[in-house]
């Protein structure tokens, strides 16, 4: 009779059910009974059994119903966990190392070939012009300090156990990582605030225009010795501005999604977010390394812009001539500056 089947039932059932299950509404229950509230019957629940391969054909993860309130637990198998591990443990360390070390090597090469861009003296040297007011500097430094700690604590997730743990031992490293995690989570908020402030404060000066195109064509004055015109922010700085705004926003969004787990998306969504967060993170760090270099070691006199806020007028004249003219025009009535000195950079 029916029991005489020799074939292992699973594979037969799988093939058969795959056809039926495609209908989505479960097996086609024939409504042979008269149209009363008569229920439908079902052939052979044992043979109809679902199995792993069949379910994986239908969806990337296998999930079902669960009676406890923790609906995450209804997800039985999500193989993407292994894929995310592959990315996070093999790809990410290399990408991170390449980006950061690559940038450092690049900057070192640049420094040892081009050297530090010297302050060109002219008659206007020695006098100062206010480049960034108190609030701008406050915002910059808040964001910057937070960024540095976030960067370090962020990198610690990937490189800490590889580089630091062997040195300081697991217990110390664990305590350090614990604090790094707290720092990362809690200093993210001032960082995000800072990003917003910087964006609001400097947006108007960072709209790209023709002057920037010219600036770029001229290689920004780094190659050769020409000094193309530049307003308050030259094209390079605008790139940094938009990069910080863009990456900052991306880091914030992905970070927030991870900070409030499962609020916005399921585990697979969060894996993607974490991937983006890491990739953009290392790129962000690399870019900021360059910004730090050019703003301090790379160019003499540049640090004062954010240090004290008052730059050397000669320096300003060289690098941001149009901005100096506008400033002096705006404050022409003001006594403190002599008019029409060529800016030196």
């Amino acid at each position, binding site marked *: 009779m029916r029991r005489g089947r020799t074939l292992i039932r699973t594979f037969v059932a799988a093939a058969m059910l795959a056809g039926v299950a495609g209908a989505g509404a479960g097996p086609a229950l024939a409504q042979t009974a008269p149209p009363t509230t008569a229920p439908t019957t079902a052939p052979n629940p044992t043979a109809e059994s679902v199995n792993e391969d069949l379910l994986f054909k239908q969806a990337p993860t296998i999930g079902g119903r669960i009676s406890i*309130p923790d609906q995450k637990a209804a997800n039985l198998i999500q193989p993407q966990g292994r894929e995310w591990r592959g990315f996070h443990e093999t790809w990410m360390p290399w990408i991170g190392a390449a980006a950061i070390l690559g940038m450092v090597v690049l900057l070192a090469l640049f420094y040892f070939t081009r050297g530090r861009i010297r302050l060109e003296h002219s008659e206007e040297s020695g006098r100062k012009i206010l480049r960034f007011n108190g609030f701008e500097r*406050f*915002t910059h430094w*808040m964001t910057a300090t937070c960024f540095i700690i976030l960067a370090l604590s962020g990198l610690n997730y990937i490189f800490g156990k590889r580089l630091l743990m062997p040195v300081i031992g697991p217990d110390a490293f664990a305590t350090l990582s614990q604090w790094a995690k707290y720092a990362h989570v809690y200093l*993210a*908020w001032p960082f995000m605030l*800072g990003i917003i402030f910087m964006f609001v404060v400097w947006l108007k000066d960072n709209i790209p225009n023709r002057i920037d195109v010219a600036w770029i064509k001229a290689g920004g004055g780094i190659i050769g010795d020409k000094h193309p015109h530049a307003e308050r922010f030259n094209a390079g700085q605008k790139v940094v501005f938009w990069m910080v705004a863009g990456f900052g926003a991306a880091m914030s969004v992905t970070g927030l999604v991870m900070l409030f787990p499962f609020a916005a998306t399921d585990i697979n969504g969060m894996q993607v977010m974490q991937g983006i967060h890491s990739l953009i993170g290392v790129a962000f760090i690399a870019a900021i390394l360059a910004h730090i270099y050019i703003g301090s070691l790379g160019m003499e006199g540049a640090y004062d812009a954010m240090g004290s806020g008052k730059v050397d007028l000669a320096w300003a004249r060289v690098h941001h001539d149009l901005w100096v003219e506008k400033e002096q025009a705006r404050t022409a009535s003001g006594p403190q500056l002599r008019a029409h000195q060529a800016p030196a950079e």
Partner: protein
Amino acid sequence: MKAFAVAVICAVAIGIAASYVLSTSQRYAWQAFSTSSARVSHPGTNLVGPRWTGDVKGPHDEVAGETTAPKRS
């Protein structure tokens, strides 16, 4: 230099504020996974430590849960 100092102080202040806000909005697993039909008075503290932080070494004083009856794990 003053702006830098203010910036650092502000950053730390906001950080601490954020940590406070986040920890108050933090929810124990037994709160998150119990419904309006359930009154969980003693969720138990084994494996998660007396203050539901996961570390058991901490002082055995206050117990998570509604009443402060002595520890019942």
